[in-house]
């Protein structure tokens, strides 16, 4: 139960924030305050998106440099294969344009092409007993030594975990996709807020007020006058 709450308290607080913004939009009559409330709502939705994209133990999605250097030397073929119950070769994971690292090992869904998905994240779901089953040599080794596999201690070390290391993208990254979406949405958000504000400015110049109630009564009065005439 505590675990359940701890895994979701973030969502709940962010929903609280969203609802605060929504409340301002609904309950307040001042157009500028409504726009600020809309902004609050928007920012809270952004927070929610980013929360969904977070991976525990992950880091910012900026590739760590040393991996690239190693790859271009062509020497570092860190391919570990964890031994496990299914031995299907998983797929090709190339770290530069010339070399392919054949990562052998097994994920739970070994035949699934989406196994590469799990590589990037290190697949912790493969089991807590996933011990490190490899270490990588420095790049000065001969190039044709393709597999520098080091047997893991655990015979059934989770394959995907060693895959992750084999792909040399063993560092967990948070999901970059929400970041991209929200990044552009923030700038678009401020631009559209500015449009809303300029509409409010024009309304103020035409009516002399930005309170919704006053605007409505003025409109009604004008309509009545129109009908009477």
């Amino acid at each position: 139960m505590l675990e359940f709450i701890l895994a979701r308290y973030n969502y709940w607080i962010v929903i609280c924030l969203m609802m605060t913004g929504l409340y301002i939009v609904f309950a307040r009559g001042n157009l500028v305050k409504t726009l600020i409330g809309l902004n609050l709502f928007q920012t809270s939705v952004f927070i929610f998106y980013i929360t969904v994209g977070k991976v525990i133990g992950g880091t910012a999605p900026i590739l760590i440099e040393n991996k690239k250097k190693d790859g271009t030397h062509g020497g570092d073929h860190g391919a570990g294969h964890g031994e496990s119950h299914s031995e299907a070769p998983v797929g090709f994971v190339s770290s530069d344009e010339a070399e392919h690292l054949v990562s052998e090992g097994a994920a739970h869904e070994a035949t699934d092409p989406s196994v590469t998905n799990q590589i990037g994240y290190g697949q912790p779901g493969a089991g807590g007993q996933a011990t490190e089953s490899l270490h990588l040599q420095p790049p000065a080794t001969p190039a044709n030594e393709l597999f520098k596999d080091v047997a893991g201690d655990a015979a059934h070390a989770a394959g995907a975990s060693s895959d992750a290391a084999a792909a040399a993208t063993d560092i967990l990254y948070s999901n970059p996709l929400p970041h991209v979406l929200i990044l552009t949405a923030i700038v678009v958000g401020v631009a559209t807020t500015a449009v809303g504000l300029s509409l409010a400015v024009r309304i103020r110049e035409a009516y002399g007020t930005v309170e919704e109630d006053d605007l409505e009564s003025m409109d009604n009065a004008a309509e009545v006058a129109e009908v009477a005439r």
Partner: protein
Amino acid sequence: MGHLILRVTIKLLFAPIILFALYVQFHGDYGPGGGFQAGVTLAAAFILHALGFGLDRCQKVIPPGWLPVGMALGVLIYAGTGIYTMLLGGNFLDYDVIQPDSHHHAGQHIGIIVVELGVGLAVAATMLQIFYAFAAREPEPMDDAW
């Protein structure tokens, strides 16, 4: 208008902010940043200057007439990159055809830099344009005070 301390601070900060915006613009491939952030930061530098020294002096540096041109030019640079890759025989915004022989995806790098430049120009010009539009408008007399 404006306090002396504020003005001195703004003078000190103005150039570093612009430098930082340029760094963010061109270093967006390697670290956090890119066209959107750089554009906003650049616009923020001029907005800060206008807040401290008045809109007129800021408009001497960047005349309001330039801004719609900058906005359109930014979008055109972006779309033009796509057209250019189409002319080279690739898909729209398929940067690889810019330098097809490169083993290090130089085409992608060039494409991303050019496109980010367009984004940065468009965003900076738009933000400054919006600020000019608001700041240049003289307020009507208010019936309530601050």
